[in-house]
């Protein structure tokens, strides 16, 4: 029967061809291409982290060391959560791709510097644990994890999330006084009670640009965010079109519908600048809307997506229940991404009429 022990021959004495004698090791058999670019996902994530560092520095300068502590807690919570989930699922550890670090940084950048440390940890854990890892980790989530974490915190602890601390160098020139509300909240209040004074806000622009205003840790300094954005653009990690269209849409809409009848007066021109510099627009447009996983993959879709984000940001800021609309608008547009991708498929080469 076949049960008996078969004397096994060593592979070496059944060598099929003489040519093999020159090949000590089996050759690798793979599909083309046999050349690959060296840049990998973790390189990309590393560069994103680097690009976020100027904003972190700005956050620490304006909000003190507490900002650094919160960021550290957030990053640690994100990484630990990812590690724990992966271990629980008995999958290979993925924290090396650094995407959890990016998420952790972004969650911290999206909370005020006054929140307790455990709150930011909850936000980070939610971002990684629910919004990302339940779908299977990097690349599988449909919604920006960091923003989902922020939205979760907003819904869970609304008061803590909207209590902002004053900056280290005093506050907005002229209009602030005692409150440490964000520039957008002040703006909305000013528009609502009719006390709007263009000049007050004009003075504030420089503070807004360098980030000496109330707000979340990483969102206030447009300058630092721009530096990071330039780095990412230079490394071709983010497409220029998303931040450009996003900020452009907000600018245009808040210029056209500026609440005054004129469009060329000082206040009419100040308003759009104020709108794009205040709040988290730069952070959102440069770092969140450009999140590759949750933005459309198609070039045309990216424009639609960014324009949608811009329009929603404007609508929520002007008509919504919150003074700030960047994070929600990106989250909502994240939901539309599959539909956008579907309807903006690039035109393929050769989809032309045949010449007969």
């Amino acid at each position, binding site marked *: 029967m076949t049960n008996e022990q078969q004397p096994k021959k060593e592979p070496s004495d*059944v060598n099929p061809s003489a040519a093999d004698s020159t090949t000590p090791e089996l050759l690798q058999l793979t599909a083309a291409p046999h050349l690959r670019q060296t840049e990998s996902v973790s390189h990309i994530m590393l560069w994103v982290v680097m690009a976020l560092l100027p904003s972190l520095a700005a956050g620490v300068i304006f909000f003190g060391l507490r900002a650094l502590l919160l960021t550290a807690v957030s990053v640690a919570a994100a990484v630990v959560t990812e590690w724990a989930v992966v271990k629980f699922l008995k999958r290979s550890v993925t924290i090396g791709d650094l995407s959890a670090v990016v998420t952790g940084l972004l969650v911290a950048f999206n909370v005020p510097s006054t929140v307790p440390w455990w709150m930011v940890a909850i936000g980070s854990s939610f971002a990684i644990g629910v919004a990302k890892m339940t779908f299977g980790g990097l690349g599988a989530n449909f919604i920006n994890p960091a923003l989902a974490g922020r939205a979760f915190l907003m819904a869970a602890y609304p008061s803590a999330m909207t209590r902002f601390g004053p900056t280290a160098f005093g506050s907005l020139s002229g209009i602030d006084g005692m409150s440490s509300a964000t520039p957008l909240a002040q703006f909305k209040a000013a528009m609502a009670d009719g006390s709007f004074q263009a000049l007050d806000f004009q003075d504030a622009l420089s503070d807004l640009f360098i980030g000496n205003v109330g707000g979340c840790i990483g969102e206030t300094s447009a300058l630092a965010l721009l530096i990071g954005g330039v780095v990412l653009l230079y490394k071709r990690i983010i497409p220029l079109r998303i931040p450009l269209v996003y900020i452009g849409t907000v600018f245009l809409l808040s210029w056209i519908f500026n609440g005054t009848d004129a469009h060329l007066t000082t206040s009419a021109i100040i308003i759009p600048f104020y709108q794009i510099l205040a709040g988290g627009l730069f952070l959102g447009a440069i770092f969140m809307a450009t999140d590759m996983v949750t933005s459309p993959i198609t070039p045309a879709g990216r424009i639609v997506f960014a324009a949608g984000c811009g329009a929603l940001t404007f609508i929520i800021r002007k008509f919504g229940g919150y003074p700030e609309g960047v994070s929600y608008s990106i989250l909502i547009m994240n939901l539309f991404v599959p539909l956008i991708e579907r309807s903006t498929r690039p035109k393929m080469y050769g989809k032309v009429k045949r010449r007969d």
Partner: protein
Amino acid sequence: MPVELLYPVIVVGSVGFFFGVGLAIASKKLQVYVNPRIEQILGLLPGANCGACGYPGCSRFAKAVAEGRSEPSGCVPGGSKTAHAIADIIGVSAGVTEPLMAVVHCNGGRGRALERARYEGIEDCHAAILIGNGSKVCQDGCLGLGSCVRVCPFDAIHISKEGVAVVDADKCTGCGKCVKTCPRKIISLIPKVHKIFLACSNHDRGAKVKKYCSVGCTACSLCVKATPSGAIIMENNLPVLDYTKEENFIPAAYKCPFHCFTDLVKTRPKANIDTKCNGCAACVAVCPIPGVISGEKDKRHVVDKEKCIGCGICLNACPVHAISMWGVGSNVKTTAGKR
């Protein structure tokens, strides 16, 4: 008071009546022919229209099942009872056939068949075929990347430690999905009762085969000779087993010098000659293995249990029915890869 009681009765009654009559008329007037099997299946479903099956509503699911587009087990709330009941309805038309099972005609795993390269790509046989035709020297060997494992709806195929596909006879239903998908076309269906098949598909000449596979068929034709009925013929350097002839392939399998046959029965019961034996030696003449049955003429013969292969040919040859098969047998487990 009675009026107040009457109103609800009238209202509900008339609404019900209105729709009842309306529906009755409508169902007559608007009748559309539907496959009666769909109705039957629909009757078995919970009717919750919950959509858990992925189809819009129970009737769509019933239709999908009736048309073979969905598995009977798709209804989650219905559970396994419903699934079986549906399967019964579907099965009616399938007809009863001889149970078949799939077998993999290759046993050349690691250590037996030579590799010529290190395949690093998608874990899929088709994918390996596409680049460089796989990494085995043998052009007909099992690639062991599991395309058949993935298509098997019954979890009846797995890849052995040595890296060849092995079918679990208990689970295999003979649906033939693996046969269709195998890019090397080395899986086929055999009648389940047979349990013996040739585990090689190589058409190369013997001398060539020996260079790269220790369990490859060298086309020595010993199996053909061991099967006098002609149920095995050599075709293009490979024996072809004709299962329709109901032949006993046990001797052929035993005679193969390179153990190219796989017998799914681990230990076959051995022949035993009892006292009825009159020593006619008819059994000696038919026994395919020389020296298994011995004995003097006209005296009770004995079987060497060590050597007996349990083919049972002697059973029919004995004129006095003195031979029976003894011992634990029918331990149907695949032996491939565990030799």
